[in-house]
């Protein structure tokens, strides 16, 4: 395991320290906890709390700031944070207008955030939750746990964050978050695994010519393996699934995220972006904004995901609204 760390046990704590050292204008840490809150929280607005296992940086602490999150709760690497941590985050950022929890659809995240919500509700804090499930690699089904939440979560942070910043009520912020979730679909592939520091070895192996299709963001295996194909073919395959599920109409406006998993050069992400653009254009879609970079990563995994978000007027305005956070700034 080659990592620039001090000790596997300390990675989350030292990372959070580093984020505060680097971005004191944006975030502060709740003492003794793995929680980053806006430097000047609580705000007199609906508060957004997100989080999950660590290893997805800049998710989630990187999105704490104006126009996005009020708090991010960091679990151990790839492990949901515990309810007590989420509970403290909720209490710290509640500005009296209630708190929306943005949860990715994993059993662990759900159980821990739900327990925290119960604890906060017992204190009389208004808490609502939305569950992000954008990953079309994993089919929805009544008898399984449904689709996973991956990079589409960043769009939820951005748009619900802008709505909350505008002074909207909790129910309105929840509603717009659910609209984002209903209109966001993603899928990804991986070329190489990643190593959880405490595990010390890669969580799976891939042959020199193999890729894993439908890769999750926790090193959990995808839907199947296939020989590596040219970038354009991979994009076609991913967009086939994404478009079939989202089913946008010609003329629709969309936003795109080409997300690197941590170890993929930006050069490759732009090569992917080119093909994504061409395919979407051929479908008659109108691309309003494209994000290219590492937004929801899996440590040093090589690979990428593509997220498509179908926009309406309201979603578009909120997507394009200003944001000022460590990892996403826009005028």
């Amino acid at each position, binding site marked *: 395991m080659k990592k620039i760390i001090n000790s596997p046990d300390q990675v989350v704590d030292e990372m959070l320290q580093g984020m505060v050292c680097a971005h004191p204008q944006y975030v502060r840490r709740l003492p003794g906890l793995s929680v980053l809150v806006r430097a000047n929280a609580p705000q007199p607005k609906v508060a957004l709390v997100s989080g999950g*296992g660590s290893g997805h940086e800049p998710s989630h602490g990187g999105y704490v700031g104006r126009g996005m999150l009020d708090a991010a709760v960091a*679990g*151990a*690497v*790839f*492990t*949901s*944070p*515990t*309810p*007590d*941590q989420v509970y403290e985050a909720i209490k710290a950022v509640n500005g009296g207008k209630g708190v929306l929890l943005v949860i990715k659809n*994993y*059993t*662990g995240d759900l*159980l*821990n955030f739900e*327990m925290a919500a119960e604890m906060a509700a017992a204190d009389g804090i208004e808490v609502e939750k939305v569950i992000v499930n954008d990953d079309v*690699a*994993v089919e929805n089904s009544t*008898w*399984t*746990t449904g689709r*996973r939440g991956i990079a589409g979560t960043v769009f939820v942070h951005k748009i619900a964050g802008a709505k909350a910043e505008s002074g909207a009520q909790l129910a309105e912020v929840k509603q717009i978050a659910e609209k984002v979730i209903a209109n966001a679909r993603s899928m990804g592939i991986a070329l190489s695994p990643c190593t*959880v520091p*405490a*595990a010390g070895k890669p*969580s*799976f192996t891939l042959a020199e010519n193999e890729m894993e299709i439908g890769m*999750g963001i*926790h*090193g*959990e*295996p995808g*839907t*199947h393996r296939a020989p590596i194909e040219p970038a354009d073919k991979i994009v076609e395959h991913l967009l086939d699934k994404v478009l079939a599920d989202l089913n946008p109409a010609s003329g629709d406006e969309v936003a795109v995220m080409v997300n690197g998993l941590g170890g993929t050069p930006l050069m490759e992400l732009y090569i992917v972006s080119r093909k994504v653009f061409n395919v979407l254009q051929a479908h008659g879609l109108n691309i309003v904004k494209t994000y290219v970079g590492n937004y929801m990563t899996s440590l040093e995994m090589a690979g990428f995901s593509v997220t498509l978000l179908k926009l309406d007027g309201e979603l578009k305005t909120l997507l394009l609204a200003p944001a000022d956070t460590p990892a996403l700034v826009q005028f």
Partner: protein
Amino acid sequence: MTQATVVAAIQAVGEAIIAQKQFLTDLDAAIGDADHGINMARGFEQVIAKLSAATNEIGATLKLVGMTLISTVGGASGPLYGTAFLRAAAASQGKTNLDRHTAQAMFAAAVNGIKERGKATSGDKTMLDALEPALAAFADAIAAGKSLPACLDAACTAAYGGVEYTKTIPAAKGRASYLGERSIGHQDPGATSSYLMLKALADFCRQTKLDWE
């Protein structure tokens, strides 16, 4: 079983889990995200560290274990095992010594807590596939008037069978469910940790020559 025995038993269970950290993590690597052993070991290390602070009420001790697991394990298993211990604590409320009926009620409450929190049932390839048969076997053995070690052995054998059974089915709950049919052939990490905990408890009772009073 007195309070002191409960503390020692939990310590033995915790040590068994910590000893199998790598094994449980490797199982999770195959069909999950390679952290089950790390999560559980982190939790039980804290549990063991806190056991000395346990009061002399069994229920309070078990609650401490549950709260500690909830606040240190994370993932799916933390709230589930944590809830199990909290429910067992509630079922043993006020007891300073455990009889066979209390023990059965505690085990049942624990399994029920896991079912309520996680909304899974038998056959979903989770810890329940070890725990539900184990509970049934434990109850049967009690009804048959068996000794404590014999009851726990019956539970272990059933749990082991449940672990083996998880190899034959696809997962319908938890992270492994994303794999669909590809999860077949792998044993469930959570079912395995459940079995290991029961096994550690059985070994502890046998070694310390415990029995129903």
